[in-house]
Every structure is written in structure tokens, then in C-alpha cells.
């Protein structure tokens, strides 16, 4: 493995995880807020979401493999062993996380704040926006958690992506590969890069958070 390949692997890791986390945040956060302000079935829904959070990635990977395989129901999409297939897997994996964390972010707002918002706004969409504004730091953390999960996950992407060199090999699956091949040194270097990627994501979030709080 040379520097160019390491760069390629890191780039693909970022692209897959950022895309998946962006999709799951854009969908999961509004969904979470919606569930949190429901009166009916709120508990049942959040129970379902919390259960989905614990889905073992390998199980999701297997199900997606069967779905996306050419002979599976979604085979015509040709997504198996492609980066897009991996994005789908990471999106599905992180969707319950953003949703679940958004629910608890809204639920943990001070009671007065929630009541005030409920009494103020009439349109539900507007209510949701105000609630999201109050909980923005926790919602940001929800997105970051989803991103961290997508970056560090291996079980599902290795099944759906196939760990194809130069095509679907990301940092975690590369670590698996080099460990299997007995090239522990390369595997450790990849681990260091993974840690570095994660550190820089955290730094970005820290900066954004500081800016939000100051405002």
C-alpha cells in the first residue's frame, strides 16, 4: 500500500460516511422531533427506534446483501459491491441513531421551554423549528455520533461493499484485510489514520459548537 492508495481509502471512507451521515441527519432529526412532540404512540415509537439502534451491523449487511444481490428484489439497481451500496448501508445503520438521539434531545429540554413553544406556535412545522433551535447542540452531537458510527463500522460495509481494492475498501475494511494478511504494521498505520480522521471531525464539531454557543 502506498500513499496514493491510503489517500484513496481515506477519501472513500470520508465520502461514504459523510454522505450517509448527512442523509440520516437530514431525515432522522426531523423525524425524531416529530416523534418527540407526538401525544399518541410516542413511547411505542421511541421504543422501536431505540431497538433499531442496536441492530447488529452484520445482520443489516446480510439483509442488504440479499436485497441488493442481482437476484434479490433490488438487484436491478446494481448496488452490490459499490460505494453507493455502502452509503445505503451506513445510512440505514445511522438513521435510528440520529432519530433516537433527536427524540431524547427534545425530551430533555426544560419543561417550561417546551410548554412555552407548544402554547406559542400554531403550525407544527414552526413548532418543530423552534424546538430544534433550542436543542441545536444536542442535535449536532447526534449528527456527529452518526458520523462516528459510519466511519468506524466494519461489519456491514465489508459484506455490502466486498472490500474491493481501489473501489470499496475503506479504512476499517482495510484494517481487516491487512490483519488477515498478517501485515500488522500496515493495519496499525491505517488505525492511526482512522483515529486522526475521527479527531479532526471532533475538532470541526468543537469549533462549530463554540461558534453556536457564542451566538
Amino acid at each position, binding site marked *: 500500500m502506498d500513499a496514493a492508495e491510503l489517500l484513496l481509502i481515506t477519501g472513500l471512507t470520508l*465520502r461514504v460516511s*459523510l*454522505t450517509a451521515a*448527512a*442523509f440520516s*441527519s*437530514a431525515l432522522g*432529526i*426531523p423525524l425524531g422531533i416529530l416523534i418527540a412532540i407526538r401525544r399518541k404512540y410516542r413511547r411505542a415509537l421511541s421504543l422501536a427506534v431505540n431497538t433499531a439502534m442496536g441492530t447488529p451491523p452484520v445482520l443489516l449487511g446480510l439483509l442488504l446483501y440479499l436485497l441488493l*444481490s*442481482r*437476484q*434479490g428484489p433490488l*438487484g436491478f439497481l*446494481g448496488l*452490490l*459491491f459499490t*460505494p*453507493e451500496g455502502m*452509503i445505503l448501508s451506513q445510512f440505514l445503520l445511522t438513521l435510528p441513531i440520529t432519530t433516537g438521539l433527536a427524540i431524547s434531545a427534545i425530551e430533555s429540554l426544560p419543561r417550561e*421551554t417546551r410548554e*412555552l*413553544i407548544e402554547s*406559542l406556535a400554531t403550525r407544527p412545522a*414552526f413548532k418543530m*423549528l*423552534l424546538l*430544534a*433551535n*433550542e436543542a441545536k447542540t444536542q442535535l449536532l452531537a447526534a449528527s456527529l455520533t452518526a458520523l462516528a458510527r459510519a466511519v468506524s463500522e466494519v461489519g456491514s460495509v465489508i459484506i455490502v461493499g*466486498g*472490500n*474491493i*481494492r*481501489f*473501489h470499496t475498501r475503506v479504512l476499517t475494511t482495510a484494517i481487516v484485510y491487512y*490483519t*488477515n*494478511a*498478517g501485515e500488522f504494521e500496515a493495519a496499525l498505520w491505517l488505525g492511526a489514520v482512522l483515529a486522526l480522521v475521527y479527531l479532526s471531525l471532533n475538532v470541526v464539531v468543537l469549533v462549530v459548537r463554540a461558534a453556536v454557543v457564542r451566538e
Partner: protein
Amino acid sequence: MFRVSSSRVKILLVALPAALLLSAFILLHHTPSGGGSKILRIATTTSLDATGLLGVLKHEFEKRNPGVSVTWVALGTGQALEVARRGDADLVLTHDRPLEDEFIKQGYGVHGVSFACNEFVVVGPPEDPAGVSGARDVLEVFRRIFEAGERGEAVFVSRGDKSGTHLRELRIWSETGVDPRGRPWYMETGQGMAQTLMVADQLRGYTLVDSSTYTKFKERVGLRVLFRGDARLLNVYRAILVNPELFPWVNHQLAFEFTRFLVSLEGQRIVAEYEIGGVRPFQACFGKLGELGVHDPYEEEQVAYWLSKLREKT
């Protein structure tokens, strides 16, 4: 803390998810979506990948065919054939004849042809507690390991993953008439050859390994080759094209081109001259199975087919 919302907050909160979605879509479509027909997808056995031979073949093939991209998923033989059975690969490179014959007979594979071979060897700790190094044939080797295992003096580490190596090991066990499965000294790793070798090394156990993988790792493990040379240990790698009539989406053209390259003089030369650490782990064996003691009418038929295709090209 709570402010009645300004329009700014409203804009921000609408803009943020929108921006997220937008960036996600941009990232999603950023893919250089390789025009399907230029990518060959191989389901291969791990040893061809782990030894680096496939990497060299890829490089040479891509050099001769600009714009083409050879990709592969490295799996055990059983799993690789399973991937191909679902139409998710264009070509398989595997090493278990009975499984391959079944794959071909069921109509999933066409024009299977052997292109490389080497041997399996029995490796174990240098002190050889089961005393296998003096055995007559591999059946006796396995029986001695079984007996030593029962006495608590030896450990056997198995792949346990339906790979070509694992299937070969199981066939040898069944020929000896003893069944090691479930015995406390019989360990199944369920992992690749390299990892199984490492486990065997740590446990000071015996294992069956293809000579190419062993060659690559022999500096790093304390295991020694204790038995080799039985005809039952011949390891033949075969390329099989996935049937395009069954799966119209497979890249039959590229699978054909790559296989023709494998059996061509150049391809065979690359296989034979590939070196790791001063050792050549593979032998070129297109059209030579008869000499090695394998008599298979199907193979002869396919050798004739590929020879005619090679002549057409020149």
C-alpha cells in the same frame, strides 16, 4: 435563554437540513461511475489475492487493455461460487474441483479451465509431537494427528470456512475414516488461510495449508513443512466464466478476455515466474493436468476450446 424566534432562526433551520441533503446528493453523484462494460468483477479464492499474484495479473492485463478495471472480492472457494451463483460476479477463480464441477454441471459456469497449480502441505511445530514426518501418505499423517490429538499431545487447526483448503481437508479426513469434528483438539477458526496459520502457530498445532500462502508467511511463523508430495495434495486453480445466458448482466466479454489472457503464453509465464521471497509459489498448468495425474474429459475439451480461441487471436 428562550427567544421568540426571529426569521433568522427560521431560515437557518430550514436551510440546514436542505444544505445537508444537497451536500449528500452532491457527494452521492460525485462518483466516477465507471461505464459498466469496463469493469471486470471476479470472485476469487483468498490465496490468489493474498500472495499478490492476482495483483500482478491485473496490472499486466490493464496495461494491455487501457480503460479496463479488474476488481475482485476475495472469499473462500465455497463463498466465491455462491456469489457467482447469484450473478454477482463475472468470473470465478477457485480451487476445489468437486464444487466447481457441480457449479458447472448446474449450468452456472461455462468454459472452466485450469491455469495454475501448486500443492497443499501439512505444517506443524518442528518438534512434531504426532510424528507425521515419516508417514507414507497423507492419510497416515492425518491418522497420526488424530491419535496424538486423542492422547492430548497435538492440536489440529482447521479453516472451517468451506474454502477450497477446508474442503480438501475434510475430504482427506473422510478418506481416513476418522471424524475429528467436535474433538477438543480440533479447532475451527472460520477465517482465512493467513489467520489460520497464525492461530496454528500460536497453538503449536498442525494445519493444512496451500504452499503459496505458507511461502509468504514462513518467516513469520514457527511452523515447518512436515509432509508433502501426496497426489491427494495437488492444488489446482481454475477460472470459470459465469454463464451469460443465465445472468444477462454479467460482463462476459471481459471475463472471456481475462481468461484468455490467463491461459495465453504471457499469462502462463507470469504465473510461473511470479516470485515471493525467492520462491515461485505457482506452477503454470494450462493443458498440463494430464501430466499431473488428473484425467478429466471436460478439462481436455475446454483446453481445446481455449487453444482454438488463442489461435484465433494470433
